[in-house]
């Protein structure tokens, strides 16, 4: 499938794609953040933000403006260059991954043949940003947080990749667009149209939990455990640099939810086998209508997954670092490998 934005003029197309990615990158995390603010509040018998615009809808932009105004403090003993660059290193991977994620039919910047490989490879770069921040802060709490983060991200990168590998095996392609299309044509037992969530249920659970750990979201938020090590690698950060870390966290939620939606929930299709409406509405051509509806469906799936992550945060206490490692190495990774083997057997037999 061709991208909608693949215009004849290469430079114009490039500019358009970049603009759309940046706009999405700057707005989608805010939507997730707002869902977190309000969802968490209502689960906890609170109202959440109510003052900034209608029902606190302007809270996050207001927070952003506040962060810009704050003093940017760099600790005296910090490694200044590394300290300043770390938020960027943590932030950029999420931005780059968005380039390959299909948000609707034709709504993607680039359909790489190795899309999923590229997405997972790039998203794991953010750990370097966290380590840089932790090491350069010259703070013992930051250091502990960074070491925890490194151990955790290594341990959970594997189940994440292995769960995705099983999907790739089933779909027979590494391209994210190809995986969505393969799910659209997939029939369970040859008859029932179903997303990969059903045959790959184990994979979905592994992927989702590993994504939580990758993002340091509760119950796996030991790297930033606020009651133990203050705020991990972010302890010494203030102002805009801190805001970048927060943006990276929420952009990470969007990216990994989007990947989960693409890999397991059928991407932009409402249900596999059900085509999107592609009739022209007035002056809007049919493929644009389909793209808009597809984008809506995809975003609803992302929001649902993000909501589940927030729900987890409201429900679960934090695990201990060693318990987390044990779960990963003794349960998740063997299970993920088993999942691949079973998928491969079915693929060969069927």
């Amino acid at each position, binding site marked *: 499938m061709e991208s909608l934005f693949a215009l004849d003029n290469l430079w114009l197309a490039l500019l358009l794609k970049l603009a759309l990615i940046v706009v999405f990158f700057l707005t989608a995390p805010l939507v997730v953040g707002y869902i977190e603010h309000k969802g*968490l509040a209502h*689960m*906890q*018998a*609170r109202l959440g933000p109510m003052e900034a615009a209608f029902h606190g809808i302007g809270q996050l932009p207001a927070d952003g403006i506040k962060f810009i105004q704050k003093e940017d403090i760099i600790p005296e003993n910090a490694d200044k260059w590394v300290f300043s660059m770390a938020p960027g290193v943590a932030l950029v991977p999420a931005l780059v991954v968005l380039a390959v994620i299909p948000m609707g039919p034709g709504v993607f910047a680039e359909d790489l043949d190795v899309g999923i490989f590229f997405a997972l490879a790039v998203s794991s770069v953010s750990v370097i940003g966290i380590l840089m921040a932790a090491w350069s802060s010259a703070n*013992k*709490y930051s250091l*502990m947080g960074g070491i925890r983060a490194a151990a955790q991200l290594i341990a959970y990168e594997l189940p994440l990749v292995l769960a995705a590998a099983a999907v790739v095996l089933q779909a027979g392609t590494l391209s994210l667009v190809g995986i969505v299309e393969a799910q659209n044509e997939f029939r369970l037992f040859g008859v029932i149209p179903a997303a990969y969530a059903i045959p790959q249920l184990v994979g979905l659970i592994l992927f989702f939990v590993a994504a939580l750990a990758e993002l340091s979201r*509760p*119950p796996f*938020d*030991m790297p930033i*455990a*606020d*009651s*133990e*090590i*203050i705020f991990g690698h972010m302890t010494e950060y203030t102002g805009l640099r801190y805001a970048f870390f927060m943006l990276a966290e929420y952009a990470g939620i969007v990216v990994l939810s989007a990947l989960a939606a693409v890999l397991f929930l059928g991407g932009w299709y409402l249900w596999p086998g059900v085509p999107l409406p592609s009739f022209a509405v007035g002056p809007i051509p049919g493929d644009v209508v389909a793209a808009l509806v597809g984008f809506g469906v995809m975003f609803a799936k992302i929001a649902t997954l993000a909501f589940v992550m927030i729900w987890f*945060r*409201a*429900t*679960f*206490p*934090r*695990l*201990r*670092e*060693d*318990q987390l490692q044990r779960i990963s190495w003794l349960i998740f990774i063997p299970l993920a490998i088993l999942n691949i083997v079973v998928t491969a057997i079915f693929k060969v037999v069927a």
Partner: protein
Amino acid sequence: MSETLARPGPDTRMLPGGPGEGMLVEVRGEGDLRTQDMNLNIGPQHPATHGVLRVVIDLDGEKIVRATPVIGYMHRGFEKLAEARDYRQIIALVNRHDWLSAFCNELGVAIAVEKMMKLEVPERAQWIRVLMAEWNRILNHLMFIGSFGLELGAITPVFFAFREREDIQNLLESATGGRLHFTYNRVGGLKEDLPRGFLKASQAMVANVRTRTREYRDLLEGNEIFMARTKGVGALPPDVALDYGVSGPTLHASGVPEDCRVSEPYCRYDQVDVHVPLGTRGDSFDRFACLLGRVVASLDIIEQVLDRIPPGPVNTKLPKTVKAPEGEVYVRTENPLGQGGYYLVSDGKKTPWRLKMRTPSFSNIQMIPYLLEGALVPDMIAILGSVFFVVGDVDR
């Protein structure tokens, strides 16, 4: 790897400043792999120490080699202040050091003064004191239930706990005028009678809190992660607990049923059934379960008390200047956090010659070095959160 205590030399790092000055840093390991322990100050400003307790820990990775609590950051000299206040005024003073069990602290001092002056407290006041002490106990325990969850990363229970606390505080405010420092006790009785409808509102509140304790059980006690974090963590054997002078729910968790309300009843506790929930292993989970059990037990006591408050006055006529006769008295009360002791010495003047308080938090945190040794940093949080203390109560 061997453990050797570093001899003071040019390489030895000393703790800079503070009460831990001169503490040696342990150097472990030999040959190529030489690891050094990290010295870390938890507090005095740290989310886990709820207050200004400082714990100096030596870390080997994430394992705690040695932990030293440093107290005194919140010393406000209440005992000394009490020597310059008359017997009526010290009641307002003693409800401040442990801000979460204000009523129970007032009660201990009021009883001590009454004992010295041989005052007969009216029956109605005695029963209302039991009622209020139990409400205060629930307020206190809800706070710790919420904050323990918060420290383990469960952010919701604290909001639920505060929702209930708010309701109970509104109820108590209607009677006492205070939400935190009630100052409802007076020498010889109470400030004033209960407002109309208080008992009925109490009845409704008991039912309300009782149903809502189920939410805490679901969210915390029955949660696998919570169990994994707390079971077997910071186990305190009963003999060690007694050696350290631990009391209250922290002691009950180790299986020792010592409770002043049963063993040395004051007010009208001898006429109500006091259930003391006990633990078996003495770990963090048991301590939490005891706390939750005590909330329910206190609700039971309140229900018993509500029907039995007799009509009558709530205060006795006092002389214009309250003077305790020369002598001394020691009163024990079961405060929410443990056993409170009030040793009052009078030389016959208007003010006490000495008021010595035995506060439960002070004794409870004595075992922190014992419990923390060999624990992991996340376990430290589970332990500090479950050894229930208020820093003001430690430092006074």
